[in-house]
């Protein structure tokens, strides 16, 4: 016999009461856990995906759209920009690197990106198998693309316009898979990489094939070396910029937004803005979870308070058997603590199971790389907080137990 058996027996003796309290609390805890798992992983994804990108430059439009499109690849381009304009900006001494992006096509909703080799360096991509792309229409695919779309080395496929599976198909040209990238847990896992020229080739009308004429070209484009510098026809979608110095953060966006037909957007600023918009929704769900927890706390308090009324004799008899006041105090506190601890553990488990189920059933969650099999130190805080809540709920009943007047309770019969 120990305090645990005693407390557990009391909880077991009121199964319905105990169950409702555990369920109420666990629901609240589960909602908080789910939000925590999603928020932490989204934050991590956003940081990982925008690491090394200080600024995105593209066509005028919504700055948020520019970021969503060119960093997270979940929105459509704001439009195209001229290659020669992009080159002019890229030459700015405040810029360390400028990576060109040419978007527009996809394969089974996986976006195809025409870019330079700097893009894969940005995400520190490594080959899992195969080789890097060299020629036009050769692609490297992210690990999720290989797994979920079932592409292998040497496979050929045609792209579709836009980001949907039903887009207009470019049937004239076929891409060939040259290499598969290792998993990076970034957006790269969901992308198909090729050179910018491939994208252009896809969208040309056949006859307009004006390949550079070798020696006659004196200066080559800094962004797409195969074309001459200052090409006024070719277009790309955006530039990913890394600053040379912190000074650039002050000067460059203003310079671009004021003095050119282009638009510059900061990933840090725009994602913060996005979160402040989404934050309202998250706050509402969070508030709902706290209301659940508050109700469960109240319910636990009432249950303990009521059961203690019935247990006044038990308390007095225990005292007559030699139990000290503090022993009774501790046993009631333990009952509250055990109840919330139980509810909390069930809630944490439920939260993880829900996220695991979501990530296994919803492809979007898989693409975003959300997993339920991950534990954060914040969960210890939730556990500790729940224990504290239980002790708090049990405090008044425990004080009553502490003050039990043995003689008058026993004499009253």
């Amino acid at each position, binding site marked *: 016999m120990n*305090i645990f058996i005693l407390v557990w027996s009391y909880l077991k003796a009121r199964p319905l009461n105990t169950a409702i309290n555990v369920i109420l609390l666990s629901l609240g805890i589960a909602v908080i856990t789910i939000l925590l798992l999603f928020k932490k992983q989204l934050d991590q994804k956003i940081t990982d995906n925008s690491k090394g990108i200080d600024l995105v430059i593209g066509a005028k439009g919504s700055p948020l759209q520019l970021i969503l499109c060119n960093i997270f690849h979940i929105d459509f381009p704001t439009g195209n920009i001229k290659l020669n304009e992009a080159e002019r900006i890229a030459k700015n001494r405040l810029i360390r690197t400028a990576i060109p992006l040419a978007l527009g096509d996809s394969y089974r909703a996986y976006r195809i990106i025409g870019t330079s080799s700097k893009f894969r360096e940005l995400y520190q991509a490594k080959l899992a198998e195969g080789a890097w792309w060299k020629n036009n229409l050769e692609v490297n695919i992210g690990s999720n693309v290989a797994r979920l779309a079932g592409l292998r080395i040497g496979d050929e496929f045609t792209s579709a316009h836009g980001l949907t599976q039903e887009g207009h198909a470019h049937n004239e040209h076929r891409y060939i898979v040259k290499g598969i990238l290792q998993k990076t847990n970034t957006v790269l896992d969901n992308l198909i990489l090729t050179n910018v020229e491939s994208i252009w080739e896809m969208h040309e009308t056949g006859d307009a094939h004006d390949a550079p004429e070798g020696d006659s070209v004196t200066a080559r484009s800094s962004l797409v070396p195969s074309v001459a510098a200052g090409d006024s026809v070719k277009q790309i979608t955006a530039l990913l910029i890394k600053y040379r110095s912190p000074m650039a953060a002050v000067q460059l966006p203003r310079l671009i937004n004021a003095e050119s037909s282009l638009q510059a957007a900061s990933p840090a600023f725009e994602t913060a803005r996005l979160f402040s918009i989404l934050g309202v929704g998250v706050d509402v769900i969070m508030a709902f979870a706290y209301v659940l927890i508050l109700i469960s706390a109240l319910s636990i308090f009432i249950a303990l308070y009521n059961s203690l009324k019935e247990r006044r004799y038990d308390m007095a008899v225990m005292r007559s058997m*030699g139990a000290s006041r503090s022993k009774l105090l501790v046993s009631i506190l333990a009952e509250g603590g055990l109840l919330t601890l139980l509810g909390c553990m069930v809630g944490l488990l439920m939260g993880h199971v829900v996220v695991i189920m979501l990530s296994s059933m919803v492809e979007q969650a898989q693409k975003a790389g959300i997993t339920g099999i991950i534990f954060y130190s914040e969960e210890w805080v939730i556990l500790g907080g729940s224990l504290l809540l239980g002790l708090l709920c049990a405090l008044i009943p425990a004080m009553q137990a502490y003050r039990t007047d043995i003689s008058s309770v*026993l004499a009253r019969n």
Partner: protein
Amino acid sequence: MVSYFSAALTARMVSASNLSYKFFSGTAISFPDFMVKKGDHFLLLGESGSGKTTLLHLLGGLLRNYSGSVQVNDVALETLSEHRLDKFRGQNIGFIFQRNHLISALTVEQNLMMHSYLASMPLQEGRIEEVLHGLGIADKRKSDVSHLSQGQAQRVAIARAVISRPPVIFADEPTSALDDRHCNNVISLLIDVANQNQSTLVIATHDQRVKDRIQQKIVLKH
């Protein structure tokens, strides 16, 4: 704390001198001096309202702030702090109440094990078996308390009181709810169990049927 010297001289187990208690309402009640020797049994007789339960609670250390002196097993209870009194109760006194007051969330066995947990005393190996066997309810060891008949429940309550072989057993109206046959049985059982454990038995009762079974008695009057 314990006066071994006086213990050796008198071998008394329970005694009261100049004992009086003042209720919260202001009414005071005083009790005659008396003494029970080690191993003897004793009756506190009186009509209801005569202060039997109060006296029993005073002797059992359940009620404090009295004037005069109560000695149990050679310890003056008024000299103990509340915490020491709790401990003393656990080690020296077994209680049997009119209603059994078993803890209904626990099994018979767990009810008996409670004592060693609450009083922080080790439980002898085989002791539960021995006590339950002695009371003829060995087969109820794992039963839920709520499944017991009233007679069985009373035996469990008696088992609980003697599980730690306390020097003194106080019983408050143990027979008032019983018919003649059961009354006799329970008193015999109490006396037997007390003798087996070399405990001093003190019974507070207004039940006239008990009178003849135990010779030593005091009668409380209003």
